Structures are given as C-alpha cells and as structure tokens.
C-alpha cells in the first residue's frame, strides 16, 4: 500500500502575478493548505493568481471547492485565478462538473500570464 500521499505548494511571482505551484495530491486533507495560501495572498491585495498544476497528480472535490470559494471575491477585486498545465487526468475532474466554463484553463504558464496583460 502507498504511504499517505504527499502535497506541496511553492509560491513565486512574475511581475505582479502570483504563481502557486501545486505538487502531489490535493484532497480533503491537503485542501486547507491551499486555502490558507490563497487567503494570505488576498489579505495582501494580491488578486492576480495563476495555479501551476503541472505536478499535480490528483484532485478531489475539496480541491475544486477551494477555487469555488474564492474566485468571485478575487474577480470582484479585479483579479482572477487562472489554471495552467493540467495533466489530462486532473483536467477530467474539472471537466466532470463543468469547471472549464467557469475558469480559464490554459496549456502553459506563459499563456496564463498573457491573459493578465492588458490588450
């Protein structure tokens, strides 16, 4: 049997955009860690967020729920949460509930950054 699945979060930024990089398993046990990171960013008036999911192996409804909880407040403040580099198996979970209509999902971080640039 596997050990408890790991989960790690790394923060970085490109100009005024915050990049949250997720690694491992985002489920009911680990989702509060992501929730805290997003809350901290919002408290510091950082509302332009890209979530880098290239190393995310698993997401459950608790992970989806974190994005649902904050997205509207973030957009009300002129920002957004854009999701980038999802593995196909992670994308399929987002797709189950129609999330691609609600969230901008981009193939690369660069394309997600461009979405924040003024036209």
């Amino acid at each position: 049997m596997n050990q408890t699945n790991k989960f790690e979060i790394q923060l970085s930024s490109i100009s005024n955009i915050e990049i949250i990089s997720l690694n491992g398993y985002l489920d009911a046990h680990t989702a509060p860690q992501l929730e805290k990171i997003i809350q901290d960013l919002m408290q510091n008036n950082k509302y332009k967020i890209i979530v880098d999911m290239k190393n995310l192996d698993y997401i459950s409804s608790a992970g989806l729920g974190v994005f649902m909880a904050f997205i509207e407040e973030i957009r009300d403040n002129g920002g957004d949460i854009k999701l980038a580099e999802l593995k196909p198996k992670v994308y399929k979970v987002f797709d189950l509930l129609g999330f691609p209509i609600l969230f901008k999902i981009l193939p690369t971080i660069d394309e997600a950054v461009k979405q924040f640039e003024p036209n």
Partner: protein
Amino acid sequence: MIIKIKYNAIICKGCRIDELSKIRTFIIKQAIQYGFTDDEAQFIALATEEACTNIIKYSYKFDQTKDIEIVTYKLNEFFVVEINDEGKPFDPNQIDKIDINKIFRERKRGGLGIPIIKKIMDEIEYLPAESNKKKNSLLLKKLIPSN
C-alpha cells in the same frame, strides 16, 4: 487508524481523511481487475473517496472510534463498491442535480462531492440501517466494460 484488507474488502478502523489514499489504492486495484482502464479506475476511486470523506466529516464528525467497511464485487453487469458505515443515515439520491452556477454565486466550497459521485457512477443505491441491519450501505455501481 487500522486498515485491514481481505481479498475484496477493506476495513478502516478509526478512519481518517489523511489516510483515504489507502482506500483509493485498493479501489483502483480492484476496478482494474474487473477490466476498467486506469482512468476509469481512478474515477471510481475518486467517487469512493468522496463518499468516505462525507461519512467521516458529516456523519462521524471525525469520531475515530467508528469504522468504514468497503466491499467490492460483481452484481449482474455492474462492478459494485459497497460502503458500510454506522453513522446517521444519509441518502445521496436525495440531493438534486447540481447547479454549478448557484454554488459559484454563493461562494460555496462544499457540496461538490455528491455531484462528482453521480457523474462518475452509473447507479447509486442506498440501504439505511434497520433493526435487523446495523449499518448503512451505499452501493456505487459502474457498468463493467464489455470487452
């Protein structure tokens, strides 16, 4: 938490959310044996995890003296994941179809588990505990691939 695995059954004594990955691994192995692809097996494991998370959070309220027992088997054309618990009965079939835009507007972070289970599984049957049956049983059914 103590996990006991016996062929097609897993008993989780004092089940904790941080160890549900063990149930996930068990279900994936079982589903693959019945001919599901890796992706399908992972989805069935996700549905099982969502059901167990709901039991631990809402029915047991994190009470670690309670157990969850999961049995997998074939019933007619279905692969069945039977989840037995000793909490307050709750039939997920009572939950209406999800309105994702409503959850979005209301800034809710919960309520997505049952919609995920319903999207993944083909049939859901719920048998609440009765006088001659101590545990609630949730049967998550998925049609077994024909080839």
